[in-house]
């Protein structure tokens, strides 16, 4: 693995995670390059979500450790961690009668102490987050009355309101139509480019990963098969190894981005 050392704030060092007798991640080492968009790809059950939760400090490690700026996550308080890392779980849940604005405001939780009043700066950050995700018109609407896509964008807005440097997103484009999928991925791209955020996202669509991510990690059975720039990773051999599919790789005539055409 040729990770550019020194530019990775978040690292997994030889971690193993398992439930009961079954190992979900084996001896996995990965450095998340700072200021880049890393996509985790792999078949169902390959450990993508578990790896993401391990990066967020949400799983008990059997071995190894995850470090942020050289500190093991287990030594950091949850609040401190939440100021650096924000997580969007695969199926987040909040009460249906909660308004979008109130949901997004919860993202400020780690930045507020017991007696800290809600500040205009908090509000400005929430407004920015809602504008970026295009839900600012929906601020007063309860979650139960949103479409799937609107709901997903509201959750992403909450994650952004946490103003953490590192965003961990578990399948952020599920429930979205193709236009909104591209909107979200484009938004993530812009967050990386304009605000220097670091993003790790579990994605399902190989072509989306190829187009929007800076780096792709292919996982299979709890191990990293390969990781690197999309051009190097999206290859028929590696896709066959990981997904057991026969694929042809074409290149977009406009910008040369690899496009995977799966045939079987």
């Amino acid at each position, binding site marked *: 693995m040729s990770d550019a050392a020194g530019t990775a704030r978040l690292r997994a060092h030889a971690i193993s995670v398992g439930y009961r007798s079954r190992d979900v991640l084996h001896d996995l080492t990965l450095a998340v390059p700072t200021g880049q968009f890393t996509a985790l790809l792999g078949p169902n059950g390959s450990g993508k979500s578990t790896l993401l*939760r391990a990066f967020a400090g949400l799983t008990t490690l059997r071995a190894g450790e995850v470090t942020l700026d050289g500190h093991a996550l287990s030594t950091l308080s*949850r609040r401190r961690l939440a100021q650096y890392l924000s997580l969007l779980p695969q*199926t987040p849940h*909040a009460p249906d*009668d*909660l308004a979008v604005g109130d949901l997004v405001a919860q993202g400020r939780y780690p930045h507020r102490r*017991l007696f800290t009043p809600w500040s205009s700066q908090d509000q400005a950050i929430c407004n920015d987050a809602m504008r970026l995700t295009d839900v600012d018109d929906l601020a007063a609407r309860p979650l139960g009355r949103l479409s799937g896509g609107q709901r997903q964008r509201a959750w992403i807005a909450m994650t952004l309101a946490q103003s953490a440097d590192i965003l961990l997103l578990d399948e952020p484009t599920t429930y979205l139509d193709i236009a909104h999928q591209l909107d979200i991925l484009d938004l993530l791209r812009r967050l990386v480019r304009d605000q220097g955020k670091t993003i790790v996202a579990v994605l399902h669509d190989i072509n989306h990963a190829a187009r929007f991510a800076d780096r792709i990690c292919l996982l299979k059975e709890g191990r990293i098969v390969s990781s690197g720039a999309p051009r190097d990773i999206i290859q028929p051999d590696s896709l066959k190894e990981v997904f057991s599919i026969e694929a042809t790789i074409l290149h977009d005539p406009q910008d040369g981005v690899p496009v995977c055409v799966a045939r079987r």
Partner: protein
Amino acid sequence: MMAVALPALLILPLAALSLSWGDAGLAPGDVAAWLSGDPVAAVLVGSLRAPRLAAALLVGACLGVAGAITQAVMRNPLAEPGLLGINGGAGFAVMLLIVHPTAPTGQWLPVAGFAGAAVAAGAIYALSWNGGTSSIRLILIGIGVSALTGAGIAFITAFGEVSAVQRAMSWMAGSLYGSDWTRVSVLLAWAVPALAATCLLSRELGLMAFDDDTLRGLGLRLQLMRGMMILLCTLLAGAAVAMAGPIAFIGLIAPHLARLSAKPRYLIPITALYGAMLLLAADIMARALMLPAGILAPLIGAPFVGFLLRKQTHE
């Protein structure tokens, strides 16, 4: 503002009624005379009715807030403090004391009630701990432990000496009869810090409806928070049980009423107001009908539930 205004507006006339109305009726002027030191008014209002009013307000507030905590921690709109074993534990302990031929009763009943409640709640928390607790495990273990205490109560009901059983039943019906300033001040010293602490946790209580991963992702120390909330709930509901016996229903209904109008931020204080209002109304009726207040709480609550059902538009 509406949210505060409604229960507060209802409490004021009820409180005036509770102070002035009784076997010897008093004009509002006479109630004021108590404050300026009139001896007759001092006995009637100062040492009989005022402590009972204070007890009703405090116990009601404790029950309502304990209910709001239970519903948040258990993530279930039907949960009430009884599910944490509070009523079952207290009832069993008190019943043991009452049917026991030689055990002291009287002032020990509140102590036994609180001890029983605390032990049952502690057992539920400890038994549902498995590298952390979860809402569903707390609920299920709560059901199991409540079944055990219920079996104990049922056994004593079926085989205890019948007049002792009747005395125990009247304690278990829940009543504010015989409240005095000593007990009210103990309750005050106990419940006010717990109520204040719960208000400070309003934000976290509101967040409890989110899923675990999101909460931890937001930096919430989930297990610590759950433990603290259950502790607060036990303190509040346990104190209420010790003061007045198990009074059901207010813990279930007060948070629902508050939710109709309150912003999440103010849910806890407004729940407290609704709880206080409900129990005060029940107690006034109880005095009129010479029945325990606990029996009348559901009667008072029923019209509010009708209103609640009407408002319930989504599933």
